[in-house]
């Protein structure tokens, strides 16, 4: 059961880290490439210390790693750390939640706007919407 508890702790840290808009934005940037914390701090309307704190939360959740280069602290996205089975299943879970929400929207008739006209196939046993109108 320890494993499960560890997974729960990990999920808590992960969701806490991602529950903040600035942290998600920082994560997006550092996943794209290494950034110094001071460079990151310039992108936000908050103090260097506040940005540093956000980076620390991401670091504790295992989402970001830091290294020193001279006087600079460099942060990068920890893609490897995210690849534990538990965290991957958590990602899959969010994929499924999205899918279920889309089905629910379709059932409620809310998603007509997303019904793109990109469909090109013609399967034999499926009627086309146009046939109904004729």
């Amino acid at each position, binding site marked *: 059961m320890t494993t499960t508890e560890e997974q729960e702790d990990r999920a808590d840290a992960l969701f806490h880290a991602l529950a903040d808009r600035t942290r998600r934005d920082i994560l997006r940037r550092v996943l794209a490439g290494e950034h110094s914390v001071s460079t990151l701090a310039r992108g936000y309307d908050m103090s260097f210390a506040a940005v540093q704190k956000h980076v620390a939360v991401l670091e504790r959740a295992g989402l970001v790693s830091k290294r020193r280069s001279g006087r600079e602290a460099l942060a990068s996205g920890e893609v490897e750390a995210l690849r534990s089975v538990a965290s991957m299943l958590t990602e899959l879970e969010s994929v499924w939640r999205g899918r279920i929400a889309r089905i629910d929207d379709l059932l409620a008739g809310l998603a007509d706007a997303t019904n793109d006209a990109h469909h090109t196939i013609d399967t034999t046993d*499926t009627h086309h919407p146009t046939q109904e109108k004729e």
Partner: protein
Amino acid sequence: MPVTDITTNSDDRSIVVTCDFPAPVSRIWEFWTDPRQLERWFGPPGYPLTVTDHDLRPGGRVTYYMTSPEGQKFGGYWDVRSVEPTSRLAYVDGFADAEGNPAEDMPLGDTVVDFSEHEGGTRVSSTTVYGSAQDLQKVLDMGMAEGLTQAVGQLDEALVADAA
């Protein structure tokens, strides 16, 4: 909102999705088995899904591709194992190239979807088992969520949409 329960198990690398929909079983069955319906929910937002072949019978294959905002195509397929209208669908989910040819050395997800009447609506229970942790990693890297960056982006969009 549908009642949803999602259970993941790291030991056998499985994900079990259970959800209740306020519609008849025959209607919900269509979401999985009618290609036009499948296109509307299976792929992630911003990645329109196109079903290119739809041979939904044991031994048959369903192929599809998703188109990224940059126009890149990500192919996938289902190798259909069994179809029991309107109660059970079993297939192996895999990756394909843009033309729908199954990709070699790519992970497979063994999936069974059960549909049943439940309190005037439909209960769907979908179980997918992946062969290895590496498979699971590839699934996430290659396919649905396109890695964490996109997942975070979607989270943001959802929260923005909620706030609007």
